C-alpha cells in the first residue's frame, strides 16, 4: 500500500464509505458489528470453540432449505383420488424425484437435521468439559438447554411430515411417550395429536410447529445466546495459564474476560456493572 493515497483513491474511498457512515450515524450498527468482530478473545481460543458457530451454520442451513421446501410441500393427509396416495407423501415424492435439484435440497434438510443435533451435542460437550457453564455463564447454559429441547422438537415434528408408515408409527410412539408423563402427559398427548387419534390435524399442527413456532423461538433464543456470549466473553480452555477476572484496560475500554480456571472473586459488589461505566 502506498503511504499517500492518490486523489482518485481518496474519492473512491469516500464513495465507498459514504453509505457505511450514513448507516452508522443513524443506527450505530457498524460500530456494533466492528465490536462483535474485533472484540478480544482469550489467546488459547481453539478449534473446539468453533462448534458453536458450526451449530449456528447448521441451523441456518436448515432454515434456508426448510423455507425452500415449504414452497413445494403440501401438508395434507387427504388421499389423491387418482393415485390413492396421501397428498403430503406425494409432494415429498415430487420434491425428491421430479423437481430439479429437489433431491439435493431435501437431502440437505434431512441429513442436515442430524448434523444439527450432533453438533449441538458436541458443542454442549465442549461447554461442559471446558467448564464454560460456570459463573457467570449459567444463564447461557440454561438457554442452550432450551435450545437443545427445541431442536429436538424440530426433529420430532419434522419426522412426521413425509407422512409415510415410518414417520406415522414413529410419531404414534413418540406422542404416546410424551403422553406418559405424570399429570400433564395426557393433556400434552391430546394437544400434540389435536385430539384422541393421530390424523390430519396432527400433520397440519406439526407442520405449523415445525416451520413457524419452534423456528421462531429458536431464532430468538439463538440471538439471546449470542448476546450473552459476546457480553460474557469466550471461556479459555482449562489448560490456560491466564489469570481469571477482568484485565485492566489501558485505554479504559471494555475488557475481555480471561480465564475462569482461577475465577475472579464472585461479584464485585455491583453485579459486574462497573465495566460499562469504566
Amino acid at each position, binding site marked *: 500500500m502506498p503511504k499517500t493515497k492518490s486523489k482518485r483513491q481518496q474519492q473512491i474511498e469516500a464513495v465507498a464509505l459514504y453509505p457505511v457512515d450514513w448507516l452508522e450515524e443513524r443506527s450505530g450498527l457498524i460500530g456494533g458489528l466492528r465490536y462483535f468482530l474485533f472484540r478480544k478473545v482469550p489467546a488459547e481460543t481453539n478449534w473446539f470453540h468453533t462448534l458453536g458457530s458450526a451449530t449456528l451454520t447448521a441451523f441456518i442451513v436448515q432454515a434456508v432449505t426448510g423455507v425452500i421446501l415449504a414452497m413445494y410441500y403440501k401438508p395434507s393427509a387427504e*388421499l389423491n383420488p387418482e393415485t390413492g396416495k*396421501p397428498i403430503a407423501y406425494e409432494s415429498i415424492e415430487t420434491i425428491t424425484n421430479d423437481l430439479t435439484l429437489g433431491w439435493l435440497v431435501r437431502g440437505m434438510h434431512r441429513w442436515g437435521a442430524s448434523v444439527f443435533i450432533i453438533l449441538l451435542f458436541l458443542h454442549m460437550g465442549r461447554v461442559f468439559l471446558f467448564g464454560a457453564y460456570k459463573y457467570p455463564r449459567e444463564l447461557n447454559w440454561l438457554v442452550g438447554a432450551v435450545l437443545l429441547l427445541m431442536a429436538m422438537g424440530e426433529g420430532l415434528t419434522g419426522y412426521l411430515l413425509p407422512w409415510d408408515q415410518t414417520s406415522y408409527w414413529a410419531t404414534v*410412539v413418540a406422542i404416546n411417550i410424551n403422553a406418559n408423563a405424570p399429570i400433564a402427559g395426557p393433556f400434552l398427548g391430546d394437544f400434540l395429536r389435536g*385430539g*384422541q387419534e393421530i390424523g390430519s390435524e396432527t400433520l397440519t399442527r406439526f407442520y405449523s410447529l415445525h416451520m413457524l413456532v419452534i423456528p421462531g423461538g429458536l431464532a430468538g433464543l439463538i440471538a439471546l445466546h449470542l448476546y450473552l456470549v459476546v457480553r460474557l466473553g469466550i471461556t479459555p480452555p482449562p489448560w490456560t495459564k491466564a489469570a481469571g477476572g477482568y484485565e485492566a484496560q489501558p485505554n479504559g475500554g471494555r475488557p475481555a474476560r480471561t480465564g475462569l480456571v482461577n475465577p475472579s472473586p464472585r461479584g464485585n459488589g455491583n453485579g459486574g456493572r462497573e465495566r460499562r461505566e469504566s
Partner: protein
Amino acid sequence: MADELERPGENGESQDPAAHLPAPSIWPFGFALGVALVLVALIISSWVIVAIGAILALVFGFLWIRAATREVRATPPPEPAALTADVEEEEGEEDDGEPRLSRSLFLEGATLGIGAAIGGIVTLPSVGFMVLPAFLDQEYEQIDLGPLESYPRDQWVVAKFRGTQAQPDGVARRTAYIRYNGQQDGTPSFTILSNRCVHLGCPVQPQGLTDEEAQMIETEAGGVELFKMAPSGFGCPCHGGAYDIEGNRTAGPPVRALDRYKYSIHNGRLRLDEPYSVGKVKGTGSDAQIAAYDLVDPGQHVDGPEQFFYPYVP
C-alpha cells in the same frame, strides 16, 4: 381552562410551581364509557343500551364539568376517593398526608393496563383456538360391523374398517379382533379387542395363522373386511409386548390389558361403540370379568399405585 387547582405538595422538589395540573378525576372515564356504550348500542340497534349510555354520559359529563369548574365556583375540591386508597406510598410528593394518584403513575398504570387488556383480548381467543379443539367435542363414531351371522361362534376374526368419517381413508382405518361368545342371558356376547398396543400405541398382531381371503361386508361406512384367524395370543412388533387371547399382558412392557370396544346390537347387526381401557380380565369369553376403565392413552396405568400419576385425564 380556568383551572387554578394546585396539587397538595406542589411546593415539593421537582414540580414546576407555575404548572397548573387538573385535579385527577374518574369522571371522564364514566363519560367516555357512556359515549362508547351509545356508539356500540347504535351499531347493535339496542335502544335500551343507547339510553343507558346516554344517561351515563350525561351524569358523568355533568360531574366532570362540576369538578373542573369547582375552582371557578370557589368550592374546595373533594378527594377523588376511589383512586386514592392504594397508591399512598408510591410518590414522595404528598406531604399533607393526603395521597394522590400522580400523573406518571397513572400513565404507567394505564399503559400497562390497556396493554394487558389488548394483549389479552388478542391472545386468549387465539390460544383457546390452538388448544381447546383438541379436547372438546371429541366423540367416537359408532360403526356398523354387519349382521351377526357374519360372526360364527367362538371364531376369532380380524375386522378392518373405517373408524371415522372425519379423517381421510388411509388414516381412518381401524382394526379390531372380534370373537362371538354365543348367547348370554338371551343377548349375544362379543369379545372385541382394540389392536392398539397399550405400551406405546403400535398395532398388535395376532399370533397364529390368519386367512388371506377376506369376507367383505357391505356397510354404509365403506364396508368391513373380515379375516378368520386362530390366534394363540397377540404380540406387538415394536417393542415385544405380548398378550393372551383375552388381552391380558403376558410379557413385555405393556402396563395393562388390551383396550376393548363396547358394542350393541341393532336390527340384527353388530355395532361398535366407544372403546374403553381394561385393567385385567379374569375368565374367558362370555364369563369374563373385565376391570373396565375410561379410555386412556397407551402406557398409562389404570390400576395399581401408578394410576395416581394420571389423576386427570381429558
